[in-house]
């Protein structure tokens, strides 16, 4: 806004159109002149008839006819010129449209290029690699905490116990409550991935022990 | 190109908004103005008596573009004919405000007429200039001039050739001489102008006397010179011809 734009540029097409339009203007002016002459000649012919000079009148009418045919010719030429100007102007617009289409096409191609399957595959691969790296680092950091493998197992066991203690109590009322499924609790039992580290036998033993404990707990109140 | 188009569209929008705004405001203003006029008519007495009220009222008038003088004139003109005691002050006020208007017009037109104005023209100018329709008559003007003259200023009514004129002497720094009056008289008789010969034939003035009077009147703007009169005789025209 504010700032003045620089003077408009005159292109080669502008010049071409300008020349054609000049030709057209000249023709139009010529036509005007001829029309004027024709009017004059009609009057002269009328005058000649009045003065009883039929030959003279005919002469005027003849030359008038000639002028008229010239006008028709110039009209045709004008037609041609106007047609040419129109075509050029239309071509210019077409050119603009084609240019617009071209630009649009380029952008589309570029966008499509960016969407190629190989590229997407590669990106996914890269993503996987990065993820692995993250895991590696995570592992490295995990080892860095200084616990041996057996220690880790012990931690896991303790965790399991605590978990049973906490969740085990919670589980009991749920058994009565049929309507509420215990699915939402599932994620809290985060020990599953660790399971393979524990041998199956051990796990069974543990379970048996726990069951005994439970039985003991439940009997106690009756005994007392 | 695109930018231009946008800024054009914005400026067009702005324009139309402005126009609408102006329209609304001017309607509101004119409504308010006419309300003020009504108010002045109904409460004219209170406005005049209560000075605080009057001040406030004048402020409002000025802020909406009504000359309080107009309102004073208007409310006064209603009661100027009534004879009751209460409207005595009102009609006094009317003539005083009219006097103010007369002085204004005299000063505005001084450049053109040199301080001499036909009473008829004066009245029509006063009527045209005021926002509200006020009935002012020539006799009103004469009455209010008497108020003015008690202040010692020289506004005089002259009757020249059956036509009443108001002479605004402070513009001249003197008074209109008898000779000048006679020139105007002859102008009225001749359809607007005098010549040396006419003055000589009618009043038997010698050339020197004609020249003194006329030169002075040209200086004061009372007369316009016309050098293309018949027989190369110079004519001296009085300018009220244009507006008559």
């Amino acid at each position: 806004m504010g700032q003045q734009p620089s003077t408009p540029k005159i292109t080669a097409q502008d010049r071409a159109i300008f020349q054609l339009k000049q030709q057209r203007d000249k023709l139009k002016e010529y036509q005007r002149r001829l029309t004027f002459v024709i009017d004059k000649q009609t009057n002269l012919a009328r005058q000649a008839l009045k003065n009883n000079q039929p030959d003279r009148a005919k002469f005027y009418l003849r030359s008038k006819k000639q002028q008229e045919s010239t006008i028709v010719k110039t009209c045709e030429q004008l037609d041609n010129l106007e047609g040419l100007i129109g075509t050029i102007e239309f071509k210019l617009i077409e050119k603009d449209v084609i240019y617009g289409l071209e630009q649009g096409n380029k952008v589309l191609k570029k966008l499509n290029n960016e969407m190629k399957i190989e590229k997407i595959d590669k990106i996914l691969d890269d993503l996987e690699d990065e993820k692995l790296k993250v895991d590696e680092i995570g592992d490295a950091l995990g080892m860095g905490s200084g616990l041996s493998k057996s220690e880790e197992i012990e931690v896991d066991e303790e965790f399991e116990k605590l978990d049973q203690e906490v969740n085990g109590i919670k589980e009991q009322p749920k058994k009565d409550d049929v309507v509420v499924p215990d699915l939402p609790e599932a994620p809290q039992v985060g020990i599953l991935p660790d399971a393979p580290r524990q041998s199956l036998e051990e796990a069974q033993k543990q379970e048996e022990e726990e069951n005994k404990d439970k039985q003991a707990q439940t009997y106690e109140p009756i005994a007392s | 190109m695109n930018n231009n188009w946008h800024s054009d569209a914005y400026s067009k929008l702005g324009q139309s908004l402005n126009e609408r705004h102006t329209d609304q405001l001017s309607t509101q203003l004119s409504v308010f103005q006419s309300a003020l006029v009504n108010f002045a008519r109904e409460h004219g007495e209170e406005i005049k008596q209560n000075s605080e009220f009057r001040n406030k009222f004048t402020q409002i008038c000025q802020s909406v573009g009504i000359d309080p003088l107009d309102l004073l004139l208007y409310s006064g003109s209603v009661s100027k004919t009534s004879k009751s005691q209460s409207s005595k002050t009102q009609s006094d006020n009317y003539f005083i405000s009219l006097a103010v208007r007369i002085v204004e017009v005299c000063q505005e037109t001084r450049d053109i007429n040199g301080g001499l104005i036909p009473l008829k023209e004066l009245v029509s100018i006063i009527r045209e200039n005021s926002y509200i329709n006020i009935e002012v008559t020539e006799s009103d003007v004469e009455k209010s001039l008497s108020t003015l003259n008690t202040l010692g200023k020289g506004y005089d009514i002259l009757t020249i050739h059956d036509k009443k004129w108001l002479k605004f002497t402070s513009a001249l720094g003197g008074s209109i001489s008898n000779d000048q009056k006679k020139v105007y008289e002859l102008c009225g008789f001749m359809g607007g102008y005098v010549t040396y010969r006419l003055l000589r034939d009618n009043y038997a003035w010698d050339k020197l006397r004609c020249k003194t009077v006329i030169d002075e009147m040209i200086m004061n703007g009372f007369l316009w010179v016309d050098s293309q009169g018949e027989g190369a005789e110079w004519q001296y025209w009085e300018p009220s011809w244009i507006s008559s």
Partner: protein
Amino acid sequence: MTTEFTFPKIHSFPPLYTKQPNATILSNQLDSWSQIVLQYCEYYKITSMTLHGTPKVSQLDVNLESLPSLFQNKTINRTVNSDLQTSIFNHLIHKLNKAEYINPKKPDLGIYIYWRTIVEWAQLLYDFVDKSGQLGTVLTLYELTKSEDSGVPESLRNLDEALLIKVLKEVLIKQGKAQLLMTEEGEIGGVKIV
């Protein structure tokens, strides 16, 4: 144009034709004359005059010699002499900015009378080109003024080419909205308005 221009009443005031000796009155007189000149020219669409107040170019297709004369009042047998004419035009040019010498170096060529200022002319022209969707196309001066079928509005039709060029040069080109095109003979023949 069947009806003649009606001059204001002051045009029949005999002393108006004599230069007034009183300075205040004179300035009033020149104002009155300027108004008359502008109204007269607007009525007959006269865009330029000679220094003697004779119409030079008009947009109307009338015989300029048949127009009632400006500085002469035959009914009251009065004429404005050339001294007063000069004063009137000087007043129009320098005091009111409503007229301009066609060529300041050759004052005898006459003056443009601006009952419409060149900025207003430029606006009219621009509006026409804009509304007719011809911004950015090349237009010949001929089609902007003379041509019957180019849709030029009445107000622009037959506008003096010299004035048109002045309007283009002094307003639209300065605003960066126009560029001129030359003919092969080196004359200004067309314009591109954006």
